[in-house]
């Protein structure tokens, strides 16, 4: 595969296109190209099935118990991304709390195997959108999380409640006199 990758690089051909086969798990190159044509088509028509989370985490309960978003999603007010807590972080509480619940058992099992939880992305932009979204300025501008993520108090497992289309962003930016320059988000 290494050799293949090199040969391809020399030819300048994207790797997963070489034999038409999708980019394998053990692929030796990284490329922005789509793993399969099917993927390309899906993205083209913006078909994004509902993510299936490995653990049925419920926001409702946690927020109900008076927790804040930023308790787990650290960094959202400092930088571009919000942290998805690691299994260790969850276990700080669930060492003792609700340890008998099946989902929590799953959690503990991950920890026991030394694995992190493979959460699936709910929001986030397609690579081809070239969007460099930064949470922090929005938080500072007092935009409530629910504006873009829906009211998590009402959600169990996070779902895509809000459609993050460019229209959605633009509308809000216009309303709030936020910059509309393309390179505000696209670079």
């Amino acid at each position: 595969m290494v050799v293949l990758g090199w040969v391809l690089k020399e030819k300048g051909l994207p790797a997963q296109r070489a034999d038409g086969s999708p980019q394998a798990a053990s692929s030796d190159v990284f490329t922005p190209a789509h793993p399969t044509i099917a993927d390309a088509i899906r993205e083209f028509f913006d078909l994004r099935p509902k993510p299936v989370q490995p653990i049925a985490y419920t926001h409702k309960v946690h927020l109900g118990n008076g927790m804040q978003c930023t308790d787990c999603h650290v960094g959202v007010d400092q930088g571009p991304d919000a942290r998805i807590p690691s299994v260790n972080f969850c276990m700080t509480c669930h060492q003792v709390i609700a340890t008998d619940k099946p989902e929590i058992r799953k959690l503990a099992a991950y920890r026991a195997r030394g694995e992190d939880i493979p959460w699936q992305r709910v929001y986030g932009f397609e690579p081809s959108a070239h969007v460099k979204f930064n949470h922090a300025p929005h938080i500072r501008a007092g935009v409530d999380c629910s504006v873009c993520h829906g009211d998590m108090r009402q959600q169990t497992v996070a779902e895509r409640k809000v459609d993050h289309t460019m229209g959605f962003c633009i509308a809000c930016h216009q309303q709030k006199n936020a910059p509309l320059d393309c390179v505000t988000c696209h670079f």
Partner: protein
Amino acid sequence: MERRDFLKISAAAGATAALEGCGNPDHQLIRFVPEEDLIPGLATWKPSICTLCPAGCGLSVRVMPGDAEVVRKGQLGLLKMGLAKKLEGNPAHPINRGKLCPRGQAGLQVTYHPDRLKGPLVRTGRRGSGQFREVSWDDAIQQLVSHLSDLQESKSEGRLAFVTAPLRGQRKMIIDTFAASFKRSMAVEFAFFDDSVIRSANAASFGHALPPTVDMGESNYVISFGADFLGTWNSPVAQSLGFGQMRKGRPGERGKFVQFEPRISQTGASADEWIPVEPGAEGMLALSLAHVIIAEKQRPAAAAGHAGSLVEGWSQGLTDFAPEKIAAQIGVKPETIRRIAREAAAHDPAVALIGDAAVAHTNGLFNALAVNALNALLGSVGKPGGVLFGPVPAAKQPAASLESWAAQVNSGAAAVEVLLLYNANPVFAAPAVWGVHAALDKIPFIASFGSFIDETSALADLILPDHSALESWLEDTPVSGSGKVVVSVAPPTMNPLHNTRAMPDVLLEVAHRLGGESAKALPWKTYDEAIQASFAALYKEMGSKTAKDAEEFWKKAQEQGGWWSAEESRVTPVSGSSAGAAVKNSAPRFDGNPSEYPYYFLPFASQLFYDGSLAHLPWMQEAPDPLSTVMWGAWVEINPRTAEKLAIKQGDLVEVASPHGKLEAPALVTPGIAPDVIAMPVGQGHENFTRYATGRGANPISILSSATVEGTGSLAWAATRVTLSSVGQGKLILFGGSLSENPPELKHR
């Protein structure tokens, strides 16, 4: 179906993560629990040290969280870890003050190189077959220990040899101590571009076996004899900073810079006056300049002091070196010599430098001493705007030169049982005639600490891959580039990507297992302990107003990337070790008779590959060479007149033949080289050095003669003559379209 779709989609979503720099997380892989507590998307800057050349610049490394494919407990998975993303100069570091050369910045790719060794290897096929098998660290170290234990108890007559690049500070200390803990051992240091000639010259003239620190920022007149001080020579970043300062940093003042060399180097290209000189005549030229200055009463001969007294006929005013007498030998017009001499004398402070090819002729030492004398005459030694000698104690010169060592091994004079290799690639970087390859074949057991398979480590029986610099504890004591005392130190900037171990730690482990002398000599558990100990000592010795105790001193040093004295503690030269009588003017000797080999062969350090140790970095391969704009290859520089005479066209494949071998590379016809000189960059022509460098271009070192610089053991790599001929169509990849800004195509009516 449902499930499969989901996988595909998540792979696509993964690609989004890729945009956040996490690579292309591949969702068949499990995710490991992060070992660090990281906030995504936030960058932290950590200090480190550049280890790619002897300059020892301070780094500031941008570290951000990302997903790396790593192996844990034999299982491949994704780990969110802090990853180095960009290398910049450390603004606080006195040597490079926030700046960094292209090579230093590309150092990032060493860590992430796809062909980096991912764990210890044991040779399975015959030597050089490149067949290795992965083993555990425990087995690997045990194997080394078993080979060493006999030697240690000196049961056998055999010896331990340790071949390394020139090292400094604690790394050198540990290696030397380790080697010394064996009864019979030889430590050999080798680098193609070593500065030993200049060290010896400076020792003789000024009593400091050190390369000079050039305070160019304050100079008003700079004369360089072949030194590529803006590219690769000595401490290029520090010198570039000074150059910028000298040119435009001081309102109303602009120093002049004159470069003497037979082929325009990247540095020469920036000169106010570039003057070609006959190869090897630099010393005579320097003395000729000195003669004019003395004769015209600009300076008294005595002003040169000891440095001058080393030169024969100095006190008599160097009458043999009157420009008119020797202009022909030097190849520079007498009036030019006189003019330059007057200008230099009139524009205080003026400074002269010599380096690279000028000291790589058989008379290199003479050339260096002559320039030292000129400097002394100009009164630029130890003064602002002149040459300074950093207060760092001179490193002890290596026991043996590689050449003599190889000779001893080949002749059987030294029966080397075990060879340890670190940071050196002598099979590539030493002339074929030295027979290093043959010597290695004679050695029963070779262990390398290399991170890559290169020409030398390919011959190893055991490979114990070192961490990359960014993954290691680093400590360095630069000898040039700043008037301050500098001791750099840096903890690892990121966790190791592969199953590698730091060379010093492995040595300590080995010593520990060996017990006896070695264990006694090296009491530390880990390398950082050794460094911390050295800093405790430093605190006692130097002290510091900023830290209240050694502990805090140590912490502070780690935070800012090292410790450096507040004030520029410049050293005024002690009169040098008056080594024997005055040195005579000696003409350079060249290998190969002029009739058969009519051209001087001039290898030069590549701005991008240095001595070839960086040819494996894709950024370096694809960056256009500053002058030739060549990418992904080597070339041979030929003057248009010579090309015409030999019917060679741009891009032709030419054969360059010396008495010691031949090579083929595409021709580059350029006006910036003397008609009787053929120049070629060092760095390409690797036979076995990762996918990016292997089988690319040709290696000029391979055809060099073994001539050495008189008075030193080091290689006179500019003392070979060659002949050349066109042998077909070559592949010359140029980024630049036109050589001139006004090519014939643009001519008006």
